[in-house]
């Protein structure tokens, strides 16, 4: 039995060995099959698969973000987005663009040149970028295309957002407009490469581009060698841009625009002196952003661009003018601050001032006689300011001018702000390669010569004069509750500021003031201001303005703040070739200021703001200013 059992075990073992070797042989055979197959794939058919591998890729389509809306300070929508259907082709998915377009032409009519354009474009740019065939697409065609879509690889439709503008010409300069993305750098948002992606070109659209634009997303598709989408792998949704609430009051803007437009080429800006908010900003002639957004024809565009009135230019931030006599407050404060004059020191004006064999004339050829600071500003005596500018020197004058915001841009949120010019000896040597001469300091002292300023800068200067604080203008609404918005003091002695303000009050409200045409004539409410005339050609010195060609006439300037006893608004107005400041800019400023005040006092929001911010202003120093104003007023009556 034992032998039998042993025998059985041996037989079992032999059978196992046989069969296990058989299994092993089968395994070896099957592994050989695997090896053969690998050889087939990786050696014999290698080129074929290598080609397919190269053609294989992920198709990444950028997704455009939805642009933020632009609202006015009361929430009225000024710029928004509207849906529109777009029909486009993605060459990467279409494969042969020509064939696909041919197939598409069975359903919709596409002109030959359009086909040529699409094909040319598909060869020029990255094949993953969509090329528009028809935008906007009507619903009927859209429905037809969507039915046929499976037979039309790479032909896609989508709903896009088109920028729409409300407000017409009143807001063209402020809102600006969007246009095709000019250039796309690597590393920037890939959505910018989309042909229909828009970026701000002007105004707030450009200035606040980064807030408005949002962030592009992307959709990643798995694509096979034939370029067909196999499945969606990943979708990163685009992030919508921020909505922007402007400081602009569109009702006020419309009224200001109406007044300004009557003066032909003119501009005016209303600044809230407490917050720096730009409440209205009018530049005429203007344009309607909606016209440009709707797709402007080349002819219409060229007409806008070549118009001598420069309707595309926002004069408030881009018009650079010699500030003329509106600059005299700066010269005065520079001299007072430097301790070179006292307000009561008098200079004699005989109609001109001679220095270094050069005669510097006063606008009043007959001369003003003995003038102190008050009279010099009120009657705008040039000689007085020649004298103090000579004492000051350009360096100190320039330093003070910069403290008032000249020569810099403010980052208001509007694109294309010009900095104007505060000249210096170094600047002149560098740009004109000539040394500075003292006579140029004298001219700078009356805001002529090389000094250049924009209406916005003049409004900022006025707001800073009215408050003594470093007011910074902004096109965005300021949150009344944020303490961070409180501006710092400019560092001028309050007594000197008061003297200058009193003189500005006199300019408008005292007999003999040059800005009498800006007087409101309302009981208890007064404008303080300053006229300015900036010389365009020397001819205006000898001939009357009316006799000159329009382009050679003087610019008419006026800066103002009101109410004089508790300033809320600062206004700066320039009427191009409007003559003397009192002739055009002063009455226009009066109208603008009266509109601003009327709205301010009738809008509950405005009043709430004024009391809140008014409390901040209640300082002992202001009480004396108010008393002064009251005294002045009683004197006038």
């Amino acid at each position: 039995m034992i032998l039998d059992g042993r025998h059985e075990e041996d037989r079992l073992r032999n059978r196992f060995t046989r069969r296990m070797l058989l299994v092993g042989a089968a395994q070896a055979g099957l592994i050989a099959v695997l090896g053969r197959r690998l050889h087939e794939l990786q050696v014999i058919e290698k080129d074929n698969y290598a080609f397919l591998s190269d053609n294989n890729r992920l198709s990444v389509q950028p997704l455009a973000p939805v642009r933020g809306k632009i609202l006015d300070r009361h929430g009225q929508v000024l710029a928004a987005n509207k849906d529109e259907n777009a029909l486009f082709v993605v060459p990467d998915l279409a494969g042969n663009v020509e064939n696909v377009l041919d197939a598409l032409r069975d359903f919709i009519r596409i002109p030959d040149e359009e086909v040529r354009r699409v094909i040319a474009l598909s060869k020029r740019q990255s094949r993953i970028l969509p090329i528009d065939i028809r935008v906007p697409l009507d619903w009927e065609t859209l429905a037809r295309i969507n039915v046929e879509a499976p037979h039309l690889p790479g032909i896609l439709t989508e709903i896009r957002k088109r920028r729409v503008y409300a407000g017409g010409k009143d807001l063209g300069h402020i809102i600006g407009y969007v246009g095709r993305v000019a250039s796309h750098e690597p590393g920037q948002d890939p959505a910018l490469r989309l042909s229909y992606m828009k970026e701000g070109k002007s105004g707030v659209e450009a200035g606040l581009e980064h807030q408005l634009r949002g962030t592009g997303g992307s959709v990643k598709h798995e694509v096979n060698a034939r370029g067909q989408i196999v499945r969606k792998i990943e979708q990163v949704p685009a992030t919508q841009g921020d909505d922007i609430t402007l400081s602009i009051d569109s009702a006020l803007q419309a009224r200001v625009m109406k007044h300004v437009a009557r003066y032909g080429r003119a501009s005016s800006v209303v600044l809230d002196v407490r917050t720096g908010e730009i409440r209205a900003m009018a530049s005429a002639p203007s344009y309607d952003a909606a016209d440009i957004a709707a797709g402007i024809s080349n002819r219409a565009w060229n007409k806008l661009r070549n118009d001598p009135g420069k309707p595309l230019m926002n004069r408030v931030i881009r018009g650079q003018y010699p500030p003329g006599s509106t600059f005299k407050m700066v010269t005065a404060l520079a001299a007072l601050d430097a301790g070179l004059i006292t307000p009561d020191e008098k200079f004699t004006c005989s109609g001109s001032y001679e220095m270094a064999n050069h005669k510097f004339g006063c606008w009043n050829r007959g001369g003003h006689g003995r003038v102190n600071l008050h009279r010099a500003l009120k009657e705008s005596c040039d000689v007085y300011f020649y004298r103090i500018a000579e004492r000051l020197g350009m360096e100190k004058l320039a330093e003070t001018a910069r403290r008032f915001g000249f020569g810099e841009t403010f980052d208001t949120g509007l694109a294309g702000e010009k900095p104007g010019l505060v000249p210096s000896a170094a600047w002149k040597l560098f740009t004109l390669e000539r040394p500075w001469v003292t006579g140029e300091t004298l001219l700078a002292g009356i805001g002529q010569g090389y000094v250049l300023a924009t209406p916005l800068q003049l409004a900022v200067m006025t707001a800073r004069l009215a408050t003594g604080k470093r007011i910074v203008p902004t096109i965005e609404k300021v949150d009344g509750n944020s303490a961070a918005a409180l501006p710092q003091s400019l560092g001028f002695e309050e007594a000197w500021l008061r003297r200058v303000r009193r003189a500005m009050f006199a300019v408008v409200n005292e007999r003999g003031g040059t800005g009498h045409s800006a007087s409101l004539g309302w009981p208890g409410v007064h404008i303080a201001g300053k006229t300015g005339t900036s010389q365009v050609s020397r001819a205006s010195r000898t001939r009357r303005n009316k006799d000159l060609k329009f382009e050679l006439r003087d610019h008419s300037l006026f800066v103002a703040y009101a109410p004089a006893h508790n300033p809320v608004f600062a206004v700066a107005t320039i009427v191009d070739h409007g003559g003397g400041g009192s002739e055009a800019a002063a009455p226009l400023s009066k109208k603008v200021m009266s509109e601003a005040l009327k709205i301010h006092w009738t809008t509950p929001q405005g009043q709430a703001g004024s009391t809140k911010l008014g409390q901040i202003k209640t300082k002992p120093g202001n009480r004396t200013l108010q008393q002064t104003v009251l005294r002045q007023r009683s004197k006038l009556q």
Partner: protein
Amino acid sequence: MTVRDEILDNATPASERLWAVSWPLIIVVSAVAAIGTAMQYSVAGGAFDPWAAKHATRYIAGLGLVFFISSLPVRFWIGIAYPAYLGVLSLLIAVALAGTEIGGASRWLNVAGVNFQPSEFAKVAVILALARYYQWLPRDRLFSPVHVVLPLALITAPVALVLNQPDLGTAALVAGAGIAVMFVAGVGWWYIAGGIAAAAALMPFVWSSLHGYQKERVLNFIDPQRDPLGLGYQIFQSKIALGSGGMTGKGFMRGTQSQLEFLPEKHTDFIFTIIGEELGLVGTLSLLALYSTILLILLYMCLRCRAHFTRLLIAGAAITLFLHLFVNAGMVMGLLPVVGAPLPLISYGGTSLFATMCLLGLAMNAFVHRRESIDPKTVNALI
């Protein structure tokens, strides 16, 4: 006669039994696992997270398991074979009742916060149970029909449960390995021939019980042009990856197919294609050579065993390993339909790796105790 050729029994210290393991097998298996780790690193875009580090850690833990399993006496494994089988069977029932459903299939079980696939352990349990069964089966009853149906039932129970999950790949692998073990155990040729005929006859029934996506896979395999953008696409991409690798590959971590995320499940079932794409024919053939070496070592090991139980354990491990390799590699090369089968020691996945290590551990245990002949009386006493 060296120490290692002596019979190791319960009296032999565990340290000596540990020393008696097949070191060549450990080295080659470790080499394959190292390649697996490197590929996991590559697929993650050159990072140990999220796969490579875990894979390596699990392998080292699995190696510990191998030594632990081999250090226990053979009798322990004979004794535990049926209870383990019943345990796995009840786990599979638990999956059917309370399994976690992922992607339309309920394969996972969560026990004390650990997710695992009981179906992977069914592979181990079936082989252990079959080896135990044939160790017990009196040699003269090998040809009796009852004693052919019994092991078949042993195989069918877990296979039916796994098929129900549904997991066609694992079910086929368990069934295939089980039947192969029956074959090497000595079942008569006539039964084998009859079984093949019966399987063919059952095909329509099996087909009708298949789930829609499983039918799709099979149909796609038969005619890849049917749906080139659907399921056939996976294999298309996989072949592109393999083919474009060429002789020497695109270079480690330079596979464009994998970098561009063309391949689905690239770190699990399709990892072989990454090896093909990045390391070329040199890499894929070297890997096949490594697997062949493992199989040869296992073959040598099982032929040296004295007891039927031990040699069937090793044979079962070798067959399971081979079937996984063949099904997985055949699938990615387009030779077989798409069924979920991991590439042993390389594909990412804890349960599968631990199941493989269990099998290798049992094989190692059998090898360590190769000279032990098991008295039928002890086996009978254990029932």
